[in-house]
Every structure is written in C-alpha cells, then in structure tokens.
C-alpha cells in the first residue's frame, strides 16, 4: 500500500463513520471517559489510591450514607455533612482560665434525623505542667432550652479526638440525661443498659423530642425530630495558662451527615465518587491493553498457522485447543491467589494468555481463504519469505477486521478484570470498580440496601463496555460489509 492510498482510504472511512450514529455516540462517550480518567487526580485528589487503603484518612466522614441529591427523591430528608473550622466558630474568653467555643448548628424542618455523629479534633495542647492539664466540658444546647451534658472534665492532650456517636462514655451521658428528663430521676452509669448504648443510634435522640413522661426506649427506637437551632458548647478550663497552652487555630468540628457528596460513602466513610472516578483509569487501561494484545497475538498466531499448513498447523491448533479447553476463570483465581502479590501488569498478562484463542481461530479461517489467492502465489514465486508474506501480504488484509475485534473485545476484558477484583484478586495498590464491588459484597451492601455503593461501579463497567460495543459495531458495519461475525 502506498501512503496516498492509506490517506484516501482513511478519508473515505471517516466519511462513512460520520454517518454511523452509534459510532459517533461511542466516540463521544470514549472522549468523555478518557477525559474523566486523565483528570482524576485534579478533579478528586492526587494520591487517592494510597489514601483509599487507610481507614484513618476517612474518619471524619459518615459511614454508609447515600449521596446528598438523594433528598430530592425522598420525603425523609437526610442532613448533609457540615464542617466547622476556627472561622465558623464563636470563641470567647470569659476569664483567663476559661475558653468557650460555640458551634451553631441548624437542624432545618423536614429533615428526618440529626447528624450521624459529631467529631471534634485539632486542639493543639502544649503541656508543661501535666498535673494541671486543661480540661473540657461539652454541652449540647437544644432549641427547647434543654442542655445535654455530653462530657465533663475531659483531660485534654494534643491527640484528643472527641467522637460523639462512637464514644460509649458520651452515649452513656445522653442516656442518663434522657432518663433524668423523662422520669425525673438521677441514675448512675452502672444502671445504663450496655447493649442499648453500643448498638443503637444514640445521636438521633439528642436531636429529638425528649419530654417528661416519654419512654426512653421508645425515643431511642423511634426518635421524633426536634427542628431548630442547636449550639454545641465546648468549655475549656485551663487552670495554668502560663504553662499549658491550648491552640484553637486548627480546630475542626465535623457534624457527620446522614448523606454525603455526589456518591455517598462506604463502610469506612470513603468518598465513593472519588473511587468511581479513579476506577475508570484501571478499567480503560486494562480493557484496551488486554484486547489489543490478545488481538495481535491471536491474529499473528492464526495467520501463521493457516499459512504454514500441514503438521505445523495441526500442532499449533492443538495448542490453541488446549488453551481454549482449560476453564479460565478458576485457573486465573488459582494463579492469582497463590501468587499473593498481584500487579496490574500481571493481570493483563493473565487475561491475554487466556484471551487470544477465539481470535486466532477466526483469523486462521480467514487466512485460509486469502492464502489461496494468486498474488500470494506470485509473491512466493518471486522468492518472498514466510515472514514477509505473512506480515506484508496476509495480515494487512485482516487489519480492518482487527479494529472491530479490538473494540468488541474490550467489554469482555473490562468485565474479566472487574470479576477478578470482585473476587479479591486484584492489584491492592489500585482503586478499581471490581474492588469497590468486592467491598460492597463483603459488607453485604445489597442485603442492607446500600444501592449507592453497588449501582455506580457496575454502571461504570457498563458504560465502558457500551462505548466500545458502539464503536465496534459501527466499525464492523463499515469495514466488513460481507464478513458477518457469528
């Protein structure tokens, strides 16, 4: 082929491709996908894969909550995440030894529960006289004028993190307060039923109606929301301000939402949106790499086999059959599981090893027809070698077919990678859709109804698959009008 011919052919092909609506739709989707994958570090965060593994990094996020926009579809609205830094807080100093920090939290009408929890961190304390360490009291002032004492005389150190909702001492205090309001009596912490404190949601009652005469168990079980403005008050007492200093400039108060971000969170509080975006990188890379490599290997193998003919063909086809008859997924699982450390490259190699056979068979049957044509005979008579005939004369004939095959085999490769990751055999240093689904399955997200955790990764896989199927069928129609794939 001459350069001019290629140029002409390409122009013609483009003209035809423009007429294929599905192909155009596929190309548009592909461009969007590639853009999303390339810009992932800028649109989310630059080093998500390393952070994805550390549960500590996601501690300030609510766990297992749906996305914020879900509120549009439900009557029971779910409060979003709200974070207070030093600028959003009221800090006053009534005396030399006292500091009061107030956070105004409004619980608007129509929302079903209050926050999932409250996390306070970032109080930097320099201790020089440990015997006179600063202490802190925490109260929640409610719209009905009641004040819940959450913590009393908590000793502060630099690593102090207050976690309302996850701290059983605070839950105990809430329970004691509720009994006090409803029944008017004081109970000791030992009278508080431990299972209730550990199992039930003790934050929702703090933002619910608690009146004299009500039953505590019923409030915990079915809290009635009390809307209005709340105040979380931190009273820090520093008896020796000269020796021990408390620095408030890094303070961070997170009122954990009952909904979060664009895609909600998983069981560790990880932002699923970021995970989905990053997952596209692996999916696209593996899908394209595996299909390109296995198509190339399959084509060369099939054509060589057909061209050589005779015993070599016989031998090569037996090898092909052996590979084809080994059940691939179990073997892949076995190899992955025994290798222990699996990298993305290794997965690509495995999928290629078990993915080239079908293409080789079809390529062989096509090459059998081509090789009988006279110009091959002529080339051989002129003294062309086997390699030259295979690579110069037969393979180029199959190239158009190859492009369609590459596009059409991407979905299979993407699903295969996702399946392996889903089974827990994936590159642990990468974030992939299969791994997100694996975590969802392990935490039985489906039987708990966490749809936001299961739906998006699968949709991602489906969209990548659809993109390439659209392009592949369009290519197939244009390039191989007579070759109908079975």
């Amino acid at each position, binding site marked *: 082929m001459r350069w001019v011919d290629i140029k002409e052919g390409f122009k013609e092909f483009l003209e035809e491709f423009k007429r294929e609506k599905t192909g155009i739709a596929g190309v548009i989707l592909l461009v969007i996908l590639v853009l999303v994958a390339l810009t992932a570090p800028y649109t989310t965060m630059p080093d998500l894969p390393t952070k994805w593994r550390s549960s500590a990094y996601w501690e300030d996020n609510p766990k297992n909550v749906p996305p914020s926009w879900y509120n549009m579809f439900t009557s029971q609205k779910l409060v979003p995440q709200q974070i207070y830094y030093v600028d959003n807080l009221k800090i006053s100093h009534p005396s030399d030894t006292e500091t009061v920090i107030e956070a105004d939290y409004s619980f608007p009408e129509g929302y079903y529960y209050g926050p999932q929890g409250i996390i306070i961190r970032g109080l930097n304390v320099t201790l020089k006289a440990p015997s006179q360490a600063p202490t802190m009291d925490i109260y929640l002032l409610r719209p009905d004028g009641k004040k819940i004492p959450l913590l009393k005389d908590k000793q502060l150190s630099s690593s102090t993190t207050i976690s309302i909702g996850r701290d059983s001492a605070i839950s105990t205090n809430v329970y004691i307060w509720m009994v006090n309001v409803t029944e008017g009596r004081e109970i000791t912490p030992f009278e508080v039923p431990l299972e209730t404190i550990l199992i039930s949601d003790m934050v929702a009652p703090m933002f619910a109606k608690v009146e004299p005469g009500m039953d505590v168990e019923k409030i915990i079980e079915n809290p009635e929301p009390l809307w209005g403005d709340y105040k979380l008050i931190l009273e820090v007492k520093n008896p020796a301000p000269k020796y021990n200093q408390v620095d408030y400039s890094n303070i961070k108060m997170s009122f954990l939402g009952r909904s979060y971000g664009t895609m909600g969170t998983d069981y560790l509080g990880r932002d699923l949106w970021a995970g989905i975006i990053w997952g596209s990188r692996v999916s696209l890379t593996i899908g394209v790499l595996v299909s390109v490599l296995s198509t190339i290997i399959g084509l060369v193998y099939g054509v060589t086999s057909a061209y050589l003919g005779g015993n070599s063909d016989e031998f090569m086809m037996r090898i092909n059959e052996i590979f084809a*008859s080994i059940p691939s997924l*179990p073997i892949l699982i076995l190899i992955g*599981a*025994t290798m222990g450390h699996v990298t993305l490259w290794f997965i690509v190699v495995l999928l290629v090893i078990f993915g080239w056979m079908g293409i080789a068979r079809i390529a062989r049957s096509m090459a059998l027809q081509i090789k009988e044509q006279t110009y091959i005979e002529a080339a051989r008579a002129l003294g062309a070698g086997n390699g030259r005939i295979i690579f110069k004369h037969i393979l180029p004939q199959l190239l158009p077919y190859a492009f369609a095959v590459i596009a059409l085999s991407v979905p299979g490769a993407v699903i295969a990678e996702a399946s392996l990751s889903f089974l827990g055999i994936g590159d642990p240093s990468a974030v992939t859709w299969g791994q997100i689904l694996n975590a969802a399955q392990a935490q039985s997200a489906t039987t708990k109804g966490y749809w936001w955790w299961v*739906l998006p990764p*699968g949709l991602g896989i489906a969209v990548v698959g659809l993109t390439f199927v659209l392009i592949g069928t369009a290519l197939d129609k244009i390039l191989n009008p007579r070759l109908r794939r079975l």
Partner: protein
Amino acid sequence: MGYLKYLVFRILNAILVLLIVTFIISALFVKVAEESNQSKMYEELMQWERTEGAKIKQTQGIEAFEQAKAAKQASLEEKYELNIPYWEKVYNKAVRTLKLDFGTTSMPIFGTNNVSDIIKVAVPRSILLFTTATIIVIILGLFLGVRAARHAGSVFDRSLSIFALLTYSLPMWWTGMMFLLIFAFKLGWFPLSSMFDPQLTGWEHVKDVLWKLALPVFTYVFVVFGGWAWTTRNIMIGTLQEDFIMAAKAKGVPEHKIIYGHALRAAAPPIVTMIIFALLGSLGGAIISELVFNYPGMGRLYWVALQQNETNLLIGLTYFFTVLYLAGVVLADMVYGFLDPRVKVGASAKM
C-alpha cells in the same frame, strides 16, 4: 473424507487434548498443594517440638530429641506426600484423574468427603438453574431474533439491538446484585439468599426451590437473551439475502414457510453450535453469580474449594469442566458436519 472418518479424527483429537490438559492442571494443582502441605508439615513439626519434643529433650537429652525429630519429620513427610518427587506425583494424580478417581476432601462438603459424590450433588443444582434459564433464553432469543430480522429497521428491531448492546456490557453478577437490591431488598418479592432450606420435603421443598430459583433465572435471562436475539437476527438477515430465498420468494412460497422452512434451516449450523455450547456451559454454573445469590451449585462449590484449598475437589471440578467443553466441541463438529455437508469436504478436509 467420509463422515465417520471425520468423526473418529475429531474424537481422537479431543482425547489427546484432554490428556494434555489433565497433565497441565495436575501439574498446576499439585504444585499449589505441595506448597500448602509444606507449610502444614512445618506447622505440625513445630507443634510436636513444643510439646512431645520438649519432653524428650528434658528426659532423654538432645541426641534422642534429634533422632525423634528426624523420625517425626519423615513420618510427616510421608503423610503429606512430600517424600515423592514432584513429577511422579503429577503423573499419579493425572492418571488417577483420568480414571475418574478423584479422591477425597479434607473437610466434608454437602455431608460427604468423596469428591465424586460432592460433584454429583452440585451438578443437578446448576443444571436446574442455568439450563432452565438457558432454555428460556434460547426460545426467547430465537423467536425475537427472527421477528427482528423479518422487520429489519423497524422500531422493534432497533430497540432490540439497543437492548442487546446494553446488556452485552453488563457483568451478570453485578446485575444480580442490582436485582437483589430492587426485587429482594426493596420490594421483598424474592429471598435475599438462594440457599435451599434443608428441612423441607415434598411439595414444600419444590415450592422453596422454585421461589429461590426465580431471581437468579430472571437475572440470567435478562442479561443473556438480548445477545442471542441480536446474533440470531444478524445470521437471519444474512441468510434472507441469499439467492435461494429470492428464488423461493419469486416462486411465491408463503413468507412464513420461507422464514421457518428455508432460512432458519440454512442458518441452523451456527445457531445449533451456539445452543450446544450454551447448554454445556450452563452445567458449569457461573462462579460469581452463584456467589452473589448464595446459590449452592457448581460455581459456588468451586469457590468454596478454592477458599479451603481442596486440591482434589478442584482437580475434579476442573476435569469435569474440561470434559464438558471437549464433548461440546466434538458434538458441535458432529452436528455441523451433519447439517452442512461442505464442512467435511471443504477447507476442513485438510485439517
């Protein structure tokens, strides 16, 4: 080449491939088993050293201890077959597998240790689920595909194509997870787990099984039938353009007869091949789908075997799948040769 000769050639060929594959999987699994046995042996030896060994060391001195340890190690090596060279083990394993002697598992599954019995329990369950679903898919796919081909370009044809392309890119197990969410969790129509209730018998058992099968079958049909319909449509459109159809049309043969009598028969070979592989493939179950639905068939069994490192069961199952696949290849070749006489004399005569 005559039909019989062709057939014998294909069968011999399949047997040869089966022999080689059996050796390959034996080599692979024996290697894995050897590694795990090695660590098991060392663990047991350490255990012995801490208890009995320590006693011998205290009472009879270090020399007696060394002797006892060597004896213990030798007996353990015999127990875990570590004293036999690797290739001998592979050979033994492969020969036993070919004789269908799969051995036993270390932990009982389905109440038995015998690998053959375990497979016999799991196979009917996978057949029940996937073969039922495959049959539904075939009927639905063929019917809709032929319909779409007859009215190529219509709204029905186009929506079927779009549906097929969409479902082609869906992982079946993910669709299963979604259906579990919608139909089992949200609407509560189906159970969340498809594990059978062992206490029920008679009619109650049948009802229980049917109820638990419904969602997996529906999922399978939903994901697969679009592709079938689409492929059937493409094959049919190709055949409908052939000269003999034109001739039949010109002769005034009724359309119904052209479609089902002439065209479908001509398109039969590839469709029959697809049916054979789909039915045989259905016996294997789908590992992940069965995991998602918690269905106690072949696929889930494979997963359990992998998790518990039951090498004998793994070899048995893999052998079973391989035999099935090769039987399918031979069967497909047979049918192909039968339906399309060109196969035996054309290019394949040189195979």
